[in-house]
C-alpha cells in the first residue's frame, strides 16, 4: 500500500541549530502513530511541517502523493490540525469560531452549522455555543479546538497534546474518538507526553530525541527491543542521559 504520509531525509535548521536530523517515516493509511519525545526533541517542528506551517526545510514530505512544498493548500485540506496551546480568538463564540474555520475549509454554511452543533453537543458544550470563549475553561477551549480540527472530516488528523486540560471523562471521549476515527480509516498522528494514553491508542510508536528517530515500532516490538514493560521505562531508557534515580538523589542532596 502506498504510504499516506511519506517523509524522507527531513532536515530542519533554526538558524544554526539543527533541530530535525534526517527524519524518514512512512505512515500507512489508517495507522495511529504515537509521536513521542522529550521536551525540545523536535516533535512540534515535525508537526508544523506536516501541517504546512513551515516550508523552509530540506528533504521530502509527501502527503497522499502531494509534495507539501509544491501544493501546501491541497495538503492542508486533507489534514485536520489540533494545536497544542489553545490559542484562539476568544472574543468569538464557538459557533462563530467554527463557522470561520468552516468557511476557510470551503464548507457550506449549513453543513458547518449542523456539524458544529452535533459535535459540540457530543462534548457537552451545546449550551455554550453562543457564549464568548473568553470565559471558557482550558478544557472547554480544547474541546472547541478538537471540534475545529475534525469539522471538515479530514483524512489525516494531527493531534498535538490534545488531552491537556481535559477532565477525565473528556479524556475517555477523546480516546474513544481516536479509536473510532482509526476504525473509519483515518490516519492519526498523535503527539503527546502522556505515555499511558499513547501506549493505549497507538498502533505504532515513534520516539524522537534530539531531532533523530530513536525508536519506531509497535508497543510490543519496543518492549522486546528494550526488555522493559511500560512505555514510560522504554522512553526513559532511550532518552535520559542519566538515570532518573540519580537525578532525584541529586535534588535531595542539595540540602546537605
Amino acid at each position, binding site marked *: 500500500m502506498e504510504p499516506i504520509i511519506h517523509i524522507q531525509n527531513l532536515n530542519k535548521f533554526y538558524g544554526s541549530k539543527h533541530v530535525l536530523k534526517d527524519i524518514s517515516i512512512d505512515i500507512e493509511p489508517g495507522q495511529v502513530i504515537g509521536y513521542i519525545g522529550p521536551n525540545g526533541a523536535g516533535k512540534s517542528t515535525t508537526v508544523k511541517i506536516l501541517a504546512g506551517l513551515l516550508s523552509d526545510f530540506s528533504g521530502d514530505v509527501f502527503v497522499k502523493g502531494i509534495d507539501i512544498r509544491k501544493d501546501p493548500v491541497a495538503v492542508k485540506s486533507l489534514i485536520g490540525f489540533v494545536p497544542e496551546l489553545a490559542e484562539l480568538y476568544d472574543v468569538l463564540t464557538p459557533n462563530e469560531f467554527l463557522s470561520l474555520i468552516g468557511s476557510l475549509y470551503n464548507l457550506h454554511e449549513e453543513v458547518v452549522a449542523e456539524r458544529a452543533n452535533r459535535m459540540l453537543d457530543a462534548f457537552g458544550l*451545546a449550551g455554550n455555543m453562543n457564549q464568548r470563549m473568553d470565559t471558557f*475553561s482550558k478544557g472547554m477551549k480544547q474541546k472547541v479546538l478538537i471540534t475545529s480540527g475534525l469539522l471538515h472530516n479530514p483524512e489525516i488528523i494531527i493531534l498535538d497534546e490534545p488531552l491537556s486540560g481535559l477532565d477525565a471523562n473528556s479524556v475517555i471521549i477523546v480516546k474513544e474518538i481516536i479509536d473510532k476515527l482509526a476504525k473509519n480509516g483515518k490516519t492519526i498522528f498523535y503527539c503527546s507526553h502522556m505515555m499511558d494514553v499513547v501506549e493505549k491508542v497507538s498502533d505504532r510508536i515513534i520516539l524522537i530525541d534530539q531531532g533523530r528517530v530513536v525508536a519506531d515500532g509497535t508497543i510490543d516490538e519496543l518492549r522486546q527491543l528494550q526488555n522493559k514493560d511500560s512505555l514510560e521505562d522504554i522512553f526513559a531508557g532511550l532518552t535520559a542521559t542519566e538515570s532518573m534515580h540519580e537525578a532525584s538523589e541529586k535534588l535531595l542532596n542539595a540540602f546537605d
Partner: protein
Amino acid sequence: MNFIDRFLLRVVMFPTFLYNKLGVDTLQLRAILTAKLTMDNRRPASFGMQKRRADKKEINGATLKMILSGLIMGLFMLFSFAVGSGMVTKLALFMTMFIFMVCLTLITDFTSVLIDIRDNLILLPKPVSDVTFMTGRLLHIAIRTSIVVFPLSVPACVTAAIIQGPAIILPFILMIVMMTLLSIFFINAVYLLILKITTPAKFQNIIGSIQIVFVMIVMLAYQVLPRMINSSIMQHISISEIPFVHFVPSFWFADACMLLSGAGFTVEAMISLVLSVVVPVLSIWVVIRFFAPSFNQKLGMITGGTAEQNVATEKSGAEKQVIKQSFWQPIAHWFTKPGAERAGFLFASHMITRSRDFKMKVYPSFGSILIICIMPFLQNHTLTDVSLGSPKIFRLLLLLMYMCSLPMSAALMQVSYSDKFKASWIFFVTPLECPGAVISGSVKCMVVFFLIPFAMILTLVGVALQGYTVLPNMLLGCINLLVICSLLAYLSVKKLPFSTAQEASTRGNTFVRTMLFLLIPVTIGIVHWLLSGFLWAILLWIVISSVALWLIFDEIKKREWSNLNH
C-alpha cells in the same frame, strides 16, 4: 528597581520602629513591597493609554512613564486657572477634573495591580502574619495612589501658590489627600455597583469600556477645553452662582482650601470645610467597615476564577440548539462572496466590536472626528447664523466627508494587530488559497462599519439642508471616500487581520505614512470642490471612481501568500 521605586520604598520603610511595634515583620514587608514595585514597573503603563506589546520587548520603567504622563495631564489641567472669575471657581474646576482623573486612573489599577489575587496563592501559604500582609497591601495601595496623585497635583499646587501666595500650599495638600480618599470611596462604590448588576466574568469588559470612554473624554477635553477658554461666558463664570453647587464635593474642597489659606471667614465656607473633612473620612470608614469584607472575596472571582464561572451547560442531545444569527450575517451576504471573503468579513465584524485592544486604539479616533464635526457648529454659536443653503455648509459637509478617511486610516493600520495574534494559526493550517480574500472581507467590514454610516448621515444632512441638487456631489464624496480608504488598505494592509503582535518598530514609519494618507484625501477633496459646480464632470467622476473602487478591491482580493509581510 529604578531610583523612584527605591526612593518610595525607603520612604515607606522609614518608620521601621512603628512597624515593629505593630508586630510587622519588616524584612518580609520589604520583600513584599520590593516584589510589588518591581512588578508594577514591568506592567504596561496605565493612565488609560494601555498599549499592549509583544512579549519580545520587556517593559521597564512603567512607573516613570506613568509619572511623566501624569505630569503632562497635570500641566494640561492648569487651564482651569484661566477660566472663571474668582479663585474658588478655578480651584473647584481643577478639583473636579482631579477627582475624575484619579478615579478613572485607579479604577483599572484596582483589580489588576492593587488587589492581586495571586497574593492568596503565593503569600498566604507562607508564614506571613496577617498584620504584615495587610500592612504590605495598604502601603502598596498608598504608593500606587501617590504615584497617580502626586504628578497630577504638583503643577496646580505651584500655580495656586503663585496666584494666591504660599499660604495655600498646606491647605491644598490637605484637600488633595481628602479628595483622594473620596475617590477611593467612589471607585469602591462603582466596583460594588458593577458587581451587583453583572457577573464577575463581565467585569473586565466593563472596566475596559470605562477605559475607552476615558480615552475619548480625554480627547474631547483636549479639543474642547482650549476653545472654551476663549469664550467670554467661560471667562466670567462664577461657580457659586450655579444652583445646587453646594452639593458638589469639589466645591467644598475649593471653598475649604480658600478658607484655610486665609481668604476670610463665612458660615458657608465653614460648612464646606467641615464637609470636606468629614465626608472623605466617613466614606473611607464605610469602605473599611462595610465594603472591604465581602470585597476581596468578590474580587477573587474576577481575577482568579473567571474560567470556573462558565461551566459547560449540558443540554440534552435531542434538543436542537438554535444558532444565533448575528446582525452582520445578512450584511456580509450583500457585500461579499461566500467562502474566505465572507469569513473575513464576519471575523472582522466580531473582532472590531469586541476586541478591547482594537477598540482602545481605534474608537477614540472616531470619537474625535465626531467632535470635529460638531465643533464648527459650536463655534458659530448657532446654526441660524449661517444660512442653511449657503455654500459654506456644503463645503463643510464635503470637508467632513473627506476627513472621515483620517480615523479610517488609523483603523486600517490597526486591523492586522491583535494581542491574540497567536490565534491566527487557523489561517495557516486551513487550505486558504488567497489570503487576499480574507483581507478584502475584513477591509469591507471596516468600511461598512465605520464609513458607510458616517457617509450616509452626511449625505442625508446635505440633502435635508440643501435639497436634491447636492446629491451627485455627496454621492461622489462617498465613493471617493471609499476609493481613498480602499487604496489606503491596498497600500497598508499587508497582513492577515488580527494576526500580528504590535511591535514598537512598526510605529516608526507611521509619520511618513500619515502625511501621505493626509495628502491623498486633501488633494482629491480640493479637486472635487473645484469641480463641484459642473454636473457632467461630477457624474463622469462617479463612474470612474466606481470602476476604480471595484478594481482596487479586486486587487486586494487577489493578494497571494507571497505578497504578505509575515
